[in-house]
């Protein structure tokens, strides 16, 4: 059963991203929002095939995505939560 993981903390302030990547299954999705989109600046750290980022947060921070990522707006965010069986937010 695939899970959509939602991350909003910057990878530079804590270990949530590293912890998340450790438990991420091959079928799971990872959605970056808030300061977590800064993780896109380092493509080597993010080689997950189902990687998403919230459009307004990418734009607000002027992050140039180096990793292969699908940028989603809020309607697409809603659709993503239905694509996966569960949603796990890293609060």
């Amino acid at each position: 059963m695939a899970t959509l993981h939602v991350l909003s903390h910057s990878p530079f302030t804590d270990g949530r991203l590293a912890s998340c990547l450790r438990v991420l299954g091959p079928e799971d999705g990872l959605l970056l929002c808030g300061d977590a989109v800064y993780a896109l600046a380092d493509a080597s750290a993010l080689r997950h095939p189902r990687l998403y980022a919230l459009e307004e947060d990418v734009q607000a921070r002027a992050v140039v995505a180096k990793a292969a990522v699908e940028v989603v707006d809020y309607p697409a965010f809603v659709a993503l939560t239905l694509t996966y069986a569960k949603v796990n937010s890293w609060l």
Partner: protein
Amino acid sequence: MKFAIAVFAPAHAPASRRALRFAQAVLAEGHEIVRLFFYQDGVHSASANVVFPQDESDIAAQWHTFIQQAQLDAVVCIAAALRRGVLDEQEAGRYGRPAANLPEPWVLSGLGQLHEAAQAADRLVSFGGV
């Protein structure tokens, strides 16, 4: 599809804004919100006494308007709210506090409401942190 949305962040945190935009998109896409549940510091998103600077989005007011217009079931955790000074008229009276800051349509209730909403919904989506 049916959504339950849990908010753990106060109105001034970006997570509260994301939760609001997500909830608006859920309805706009033709889905249903069975319940909004405000927990921990999320209870501050329900306070009527939050004042934002004029050049910032008033997320607390936008929550209130959204919930009223969409006639949503918006539950605020009573234990989390009382310890943070978010009180409705009844609780302010019960504990002898000078003012209430939780107007309708917000409702104070227990954590069981989150559990029930999670059971009734197809998806539970939580927003918190930053």
